[in-house]
């Protein structure tokens, strides 16, 4: 008996399938066609949602925020704001009184440089905005960690494309080689189960909604106008601190106080003065990350909502598994 080569066997199967289908409609094929459509949909979905461009930006944003998303670092920012707040309160109160009394009369806070009065007048708004922002970020620390623990965003499109290619390949194999539909069926069941289990394996059911909450919280933070507002606050704070350091503290010295007396009588002003470089070292990179994160945030916020992501795996998995069960290997009744 002559053995056919694999290619010849496939051609023979195709001819048989063709001759059979020419005579009798093969109603067992439709699940394979549907599977092929699902495969194509999975391949096309990342392109439709522009995931190859947007998903890496999500990875970039998470990476840019990573140095700042620790309890210690966020507590440090809150402490920085409290230091400025305390120094402004002290300057407006005891420091102003000291300078007024030493001047005799008439000179009070109105004699402060305009760069300080600008800080003083804006501080309640700056304080409230920055504290609210930091509270919001701190409140989403857990959500950030959950998202950061997911597989890299850069891989996301491939989570759709690879199952899509496999599904399309299996469906094509089932259509081309009817005798191998038994194997195709098993493979599709395995693939379907894999897709159903994937969100559980990656803890997406918990992490994706947390990511969604983080994205919602950052919606008002990661905007160009908000970043520009914070840049303006930073400018006001820097000028105001300069006025304290270069005008107000020297005025206290001229009023007869030594450096040690200023430190003991006006500890908040002295602390801000000595910590200012540290505050700058601390805060400017965060503002930079916020600024650089705006286009990245906008890119990933235009992806489908995070809580839907597990369903993008489960639904095709369920459908593929169900279709696989409907596939009847050739010869089966």
């Amino acid at each position: 008996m002559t053995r056919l080569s694999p290619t010849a066997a496939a051609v023979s199967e195709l001819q048989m399938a063709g001759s059979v289908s020419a005579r009798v409609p093969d109603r067992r094929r439709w699940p394979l066609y549907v599977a092929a459509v699902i495969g194509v949909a999975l391949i096309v979905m990342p392109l439709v949602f522009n995931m190859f461009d947007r998903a890496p930006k999500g990875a970039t944003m998470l990476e840019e925020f990573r140095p700042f998303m620790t309890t210690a670092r966020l507590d440090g920012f809150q402490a920085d704001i409290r230091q400025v707040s305390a120094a402004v309160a002290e300057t407006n109160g005891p420091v102003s009184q000291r300078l007024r009394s030493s001047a005799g009369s008439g000179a009070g806070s109105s004699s402060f440089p305009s760069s300080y009065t600008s800080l003083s007048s804006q501080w309640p708004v700056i304080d409230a905005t920055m504290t609210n922002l930091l509270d919001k970020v701190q409140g989403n620390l857990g959500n950030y960690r959950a998202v950061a623990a997911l597989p890299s965003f850069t891989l996301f499109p491939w989570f759709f494309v690879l199952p899509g290619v496999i599904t399309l390949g299996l469906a094509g194999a089932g259509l081309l080689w009817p005798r191998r539909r038994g194997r195709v069926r098993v493979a599709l069941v395995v693939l379907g189960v894999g897709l159903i289990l994937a969100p559980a394996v990656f803890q997406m059911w918990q992490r994706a909604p947390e990511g969604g909450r983080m994205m919602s919280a950052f919606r008002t933070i990661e905007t160009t106008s908000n970043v520009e507002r914070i840049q303006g606050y930073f400018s006001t704070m820097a000028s105001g601190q300069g006025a304290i350091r270069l005008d107000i503290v020297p005025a206290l010295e001229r009023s007869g106080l030594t450096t040690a007396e200023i430190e003991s009588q006006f500890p908040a002003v002295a602390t801000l003065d000595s910590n200012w470089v540290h505050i700058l070292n601390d805060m400017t990179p965060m503002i930079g990350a916020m600024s650089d994160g705006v286009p990245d945030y906008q890119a990933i916020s235009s992806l489908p909502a995070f809580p839907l992501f597990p369903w993008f795996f489960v639904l095709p998995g369920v459908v593929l598994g169900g279709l696989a069960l409907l596939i009847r290997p050739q010869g089966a009744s």
Partner: protein
Amino acid sequence: MLRVLPGAALAMLAVVALAGCGSSSSHTATSGTPLVGTFHLTAGSCSGPSVTGTYFQMIQPGGTIAAGKYFENPDSPCVNKSYTSGTPGRDGGLVTGRYQPNPVPAFNRLQSALADEILAPQSFTEIDFAISTNALDPQTGLKVPAPEVYDNNGRLSGQIEAWSAAWNDQYFNQGSPKPNGTSPGLTSPLTGTYDASTHAFLLTWASQVVGGPFNGFTGYWHLQGTFAPSPA
């Protein structure tokens, strides 16, 4: 005849290739005599609200070069704190035709910048900033040409893509055009004047910061002094 064609085609391809990638200043319209040497800077000097010599200003997002709103540097010696005056560095100023790179390390432990060839480091909100020109722009990582300035009957033009400010452990490209050849926002070309008899020059340009904490701010640079050509 047929033998000549491949040679001619190759020659044409070579010309096209050279025109396309050879010139470091391909982004900038430049003409005139190249001024290769040192643009010795006159230190910035404040007299009342006006400033002469070398200085820079930082314009906040949404502002204009002429009217601001400006970032006020409390450490400026000027009455008008929007001006930060410059003091010549160890090389006396800007050198064209070669780089004046960042030292290693580029920052001290307080994250003040240390480059001091073009300008002496200058305090900016209590942290020193410094200027350098580097073959690889430190902010973008892109390759940039060494500064070039051309004199065309007393009018200066050129490119200064490599001009880089360092501050607080961060780099900000302040060149024009930007390292990718674009001129975003208020970025304006390098222009100026040159008196060939006295060698007195004035160079100005503006460069918008792209990325980082000062994203959208624009640096306006005003360099003044005397040009000394490199020895032939």
